[in-house]
């Protein structure tokens, strides 16, 4: 067989994911060949080689995401560890190739495109796989967004926040996943389901984002404090959230601790 013919057919399949899918579909069809390009590819390669090419196309798309890996290393690493990375990129190939026809993708646009495709992909996956991947991606995406957006500073008569704080409930230990993948010693046992809340802090005078775990009560108090009210108003908010067990002294102690850590400057009634 002429090598240029064979290599041309394979190149067409690899540059045009829609064509590859149609050729694969033709290879499964029982209707006779009509001599189309898809028929030629189907006859030349057969179903099993076309399936290998589909995976190879996914692999190429994956490699094209190496630049994005610096933003979402754990998401991609976890998908690889769970054995669904190529499956995802096979699905994503068509959308990605179409988007790239217009030119190189800006990083945020690329992340948005990836995010949308990932949501669709995870919707079809079992929960024990979808949840860790979704939460790990949300974690890395938030780090990216916080790191690139100047914090909007909340300032009221009662307090002034010194940065942006996000409180995110998690059901998977994403920090453990990130650490194990980062050290290249990840195993499936590192996917641990555990309810907790992560607090992300981006100070107004810095680019780095700190992450720490807080208990549910502290998370609720921080959330109430972020509203910027005085002690009474904050207690009322907590009571509305069914957290009236927090005494005024406990609330004030938490607010003072937040101020000592540099998150917030207390004013007005908080100082009385």
């Amino acid at each position, binding site marked *: 067989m002429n*090598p240029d013919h064979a290599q*041309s057919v*394979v190149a067409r399949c690899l540059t045009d994911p829609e064509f590859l899918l149609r050729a694969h579909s033709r290879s499964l069809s029982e209707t006779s060949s009509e001599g189309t390009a898809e028929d030629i590819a189907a006859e030349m390669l057969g179903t099993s080689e076309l399936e290998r090419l589909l*995976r190879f196309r996914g692999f190429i798309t994956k*490699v094209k995401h190496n630049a994005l890996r610096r933003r979402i290393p754990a998401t991609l690493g976890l998908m690889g560890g769970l054995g669904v*990375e190529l*499956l995802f990129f096979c699905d994503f190939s068509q959308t990605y190739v179409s988007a790239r026809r217009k*030119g*190189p993708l800006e990083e945020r646009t690329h992340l948005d495109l990836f995010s949308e495709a990932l949501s669709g992909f995870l919707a079809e996956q079992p929960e024990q796989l979808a949840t860790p991947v979704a939460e790990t991606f949300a974690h890395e995406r938030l780090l990216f967004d916080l790191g690139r957006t100047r914090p909007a500073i909340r300032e009221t008569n009662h307090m002034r926040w010194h940065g942006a704080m996000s409180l995110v409930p998690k059901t998977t230990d994403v920090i453990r996943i990130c650490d194990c993948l980062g050290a290249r010693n990840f195993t499936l046992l590192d996917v641990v389901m555990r309810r907790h809340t992560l607090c992300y802090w981006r100070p107004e005078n810095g680019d780095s984002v700190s992450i720490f775990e807080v208990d549910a009560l502290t998370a609720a108090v921080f959330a109430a404090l972020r509203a910027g009210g005085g002690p009474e108003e904050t207690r009322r908010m907590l009571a509305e959230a069914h957290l009236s067990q927090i005494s005024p002294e406990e609330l004030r102690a938490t607010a003072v601790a937040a101020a000592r850590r540099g998150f917030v400057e207390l004013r007005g009634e908080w100082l009385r």
Partner: protein
Amino acid sequence: MTPARPFPSDRTVVGLTYSEYVPGLVKAEPGLVDYVEIAFEQLLGTPEVGALHDEIPIVLHCASLSIAGNNPPEQALVEKLAYWIKKTKTPWVGEHLAYVRSDGRYREIAEHDAVTAAEDRTGAEFVVDGIPFNVGYTVSPQLSEAVLNRVVSASATWEAKLGATVLLENGPIYFCMPGSTMDQVEFLNLLCARRSEARLLLDLSHLAISCSNLSLDPFETLMALPLDRVVEVHLSGAREEGGTVWDDHTMPAPALVFELFDRLMSASRPRAVTLEYNWDATFPTETVIRDVQRVRRIILARQAKATLA
């Protein structure tokens, strides 16, 4: 900044493929590696990376010649490659025994101009020169007499044009190219038999991947290759998914690849060994250091045995 040392020729040296973390590691760990391998395509997008040459010898790698294909790169691209060969004083250029482009000469398959991704025309990720099918990734070619003749001729032509030795790198086999009449081992042996100047870049991870995907014994396959022609060795990670093993430069090389390297060093003395840990800018440097030291220990042990023998 001190000028780079000349590329060592008296021993097997160890290098790293360029990634964002590499310049920092080279600075922080002087003497850890002897050279840095840089993809020519990287230099097209970010030429400032070439400044590393002031600090450490550079080896150029390339994925643009499409040496097994029917579409050579455009002259402008060749001129840029020649520029970087001269500028970096690379001791050779490593190129994939593969094709990247196809001219789509079979029009019944090739009504495709509208579907070639823009990435392949912009140079952002791979070089683009307006040729119809640009896969944007190296593809193992048809292993046949016709392609063998093409590669023999093309490698001689490129060496003459570029004024540099072009090492040919074995690719990983992920699917069977229609019309192949021989395996990669036979192809490489015939290539070296027909062209006495042919030199190889042996990617041991690609070899292990191909052997796994084709159910071959990797050690037998290794020993059947023309090992006396191997000038440079690549080591990287691999990952299994969907019943196939895939190249993965985000992972350290597995134990099998180090065992293959040890076996190779018992039979041959390549000039350079490159760890390709370059797909993830956050690759843990302690793992890189550990594996560089592991490679050096293997080299030293094999050289000591050879000296005793």
